C-alpha cells in the first residue's frame, strides 16, 4: 500500500509542479530576464507593487482591529461577520468585479468615479485579499495566551495597552503570515481588476493583466511575467511557512504561565 501511495503522491506532485516548471523551461533563463526588461513588464511590475502596497496597508489598518474584535469578543452576529469576512475567499473574482462595479461604478450604488483608476485596482485587490489576512489574524489573536491577557488586566492595564503591549506582539508572527498570504493573493488578482479597473499600461495594468494582454501578442513577455509571479509567490509562501512555525511552536515570547 505504501508503494502505491508513494506513486500516487509522486504523480500528484508532478502534476502540480509541471506547469510551473514549464514556464521556466519553455525559454532560456536569459530570455526570461531580457523579456522582463520589456516596457510592458516593467510598467506592470511598478503598478502591481504600488497598488499591492496600498491595498495591504488598507487591509492591515482596517483588518487588524476587526480581527482583534472578532477574536476577543463574543457578540450577536459574530459568526455572520466571520462568514462575511470569508466570503471573498470562495466568491468567483468575476462576481467581485461586477459587485465592485455595481457598488462603486459611476451608475452604481455609491456612484463614484473610481472605475479605471489605480484606486479601483487597490479596492479590487483589497477586496479579494483581505480575507486571507483577517482570517489568519483572528486565529493569531485567539492563540494569544488568555492567562497573560488576564494578568495584564489584573495589573491594571487598560484595553488599549493590553492590545498594543500584549496581544499585538504575541500575535505578530501570525499577523505577518496573514499579511504574506494576503499579499500573494493580491498580486495574483485578475478578474475583479479587469472588470472594475480596466487594463491600461502604467495605470491599471498589473502583472496578471499584462500576462493576459501579452499572451497573444508576445508569448515570451507573458512567460517572463509568469516566471516573476511564480518567484514572488514562492518566496511569500516560504515566508508564511517560516512565520507560522515561529507562531505555532512554543513561542519564545510567551512561556505559558499555566503550563
Amino acid at each position, binding site marked *: 500500500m505504501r508503494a502505491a501511495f508513494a506513486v500516487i503522491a509522486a504523480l500528484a506532485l508532478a502534476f502540480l509542479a509541471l506547469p510551473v516548471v514549464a514556464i521556466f523551461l519553455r525559454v532560456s533563463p536569459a530570455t526570461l530576464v531580457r523579456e522582463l526588461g520589456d516596457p510592458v513588464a516593467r510598467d506592470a511590475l511598478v503598478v502591481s507593487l504600488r497598488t499591492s502596497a496600498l491595498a495591504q496597508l488598507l487591509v492591515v489598518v482596517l483588518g487588524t482591529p476587526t480581527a482583534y474584535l472578532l477574536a476577543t469578543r463574543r457578540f450577536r452576529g459574530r459568526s455572520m461577520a466571520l462568514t462575511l469576512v470569508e466570503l471573498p475567499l470562495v466568491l468567483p473574482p468575476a462576481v467581485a468585479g461586477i459587485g465592485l462595479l455595481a457598488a462603486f461604478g*459611476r451608475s452604481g450604488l455609491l456612484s463614484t468615479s473610481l472605475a479605471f483608476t489605480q484606486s479601483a485596482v487597490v479596492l479590487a485587490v483589497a477586496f479579494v485579499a483581505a480575507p486571507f489576512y483577517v482570517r489568519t489574524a483572528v486565529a493569531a489573536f485567539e492563540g494569544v495566551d488568555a492567562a497573560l491577557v488576564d494578568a495584564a488586566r489584573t495589573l491594571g492595564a487598560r484595553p488599549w495597552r493590553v492590545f498594543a503591549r500584549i496581544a499585538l506582539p504575541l500575535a505578530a508572527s501570525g499577523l505577518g503570515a496573514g499579511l504574506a498570504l494576503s499579499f500573494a493573493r493580491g498580486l495574483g488578482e485578475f478578474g475583479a481588476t479587469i472588470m472594475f479597473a480596466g487594463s491600461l499600461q502604467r495605470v491599471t495594468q498589473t502583472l496578471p493583466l499584462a500576462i493576459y494582454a501579452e499572451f497573444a501578442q508576445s508569448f515570451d513577455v507573458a512567460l517572463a511575467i509568469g516566471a516573476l509571479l511564480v518567484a514572488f509567490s514562492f518566496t511569500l509562501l516560504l515566508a508564511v511557512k517560516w512565520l507560522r512555525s515561529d507562531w505555532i511552536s512554543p513561542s519564545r515570547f510567551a512561556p505559558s504561565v499555566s503550563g
Partner: protein
Amino acid sequence: MSLLAVFAAASLTAVFPGIDRAPRFQFGGSDQLAFQIRQGAPADVFASASPKYVQQLHARGLCSKPKVFATNTLVLIVPRANPAHIRSVYDLRRRGIKLVVGAPGVPIGDYTRTLLTRLHLRSALSNVVSDETDVKLVVAKVALGEADAGFVYRTDVKPAGKRVIQFELPVRAQPTVKYELCVPTKRKHPQLAARFVREVLSKRGRAALKAAGFGLP
C-alpha cells in the same frame, strides 16, 4: 449538436448564430483566437475581423486560403446619458474624458489607432482609460456608463440597444475593415467546415450580414 467548432471575431457574436445555429461558437478577439489556433485549439472554421491573422495562419500552412466575406466601419459610441457631453469625435481631445478602446494588436484597437491618426487626433489617446481585449468589452464599458466614449464597429451598436448613442465618423478617415475566414488544416470535419463557409458566403448569409449592418465585399 453539430461537431463543428467555429472561432469567430467578437463582432460576429450577434450575426453568426443567425446564419447557422448548429456549430459550437467561440467568440473573442481575433488575435487571441489566432493564438489559440496556433497552439492547437480545435477550430474547424476561423473568421477574423482583420486579414492579418488569417493570412498569418495561411502563410504557416495552418489554414486554407482566406476568403473575404464582410466589411465594416467604425463609429464612436457614448452612453445614452452622455455624461461627458460629447457632440463629435473632436471632443475627445478634451482632457478628463474617459475613453475606452481596443488594445494594440486587437483588430478594433489597431483600426481605432489608424482612424485617430488619419483624423490628426492621436492626442485623444491620452484620454484612454482602458485597452480592452475585444470589441464587446469596449461596448460593455460604454453601455454600462462607466466610460464616456468608445470606438466600436457599426454592427455593435444595434446589439447594445438603447444604452448607447452613436456618432458617425468621417468617411475619409475610415480604415479598411475586412473580415476573412479560413478552414484550419488537419481537422476531422473539412466537409462540414466547407459547408459553413458556403453558408456564410451564400445569398442568405450575405443577407444576414447586411441586415446586421455589415458591408459586403
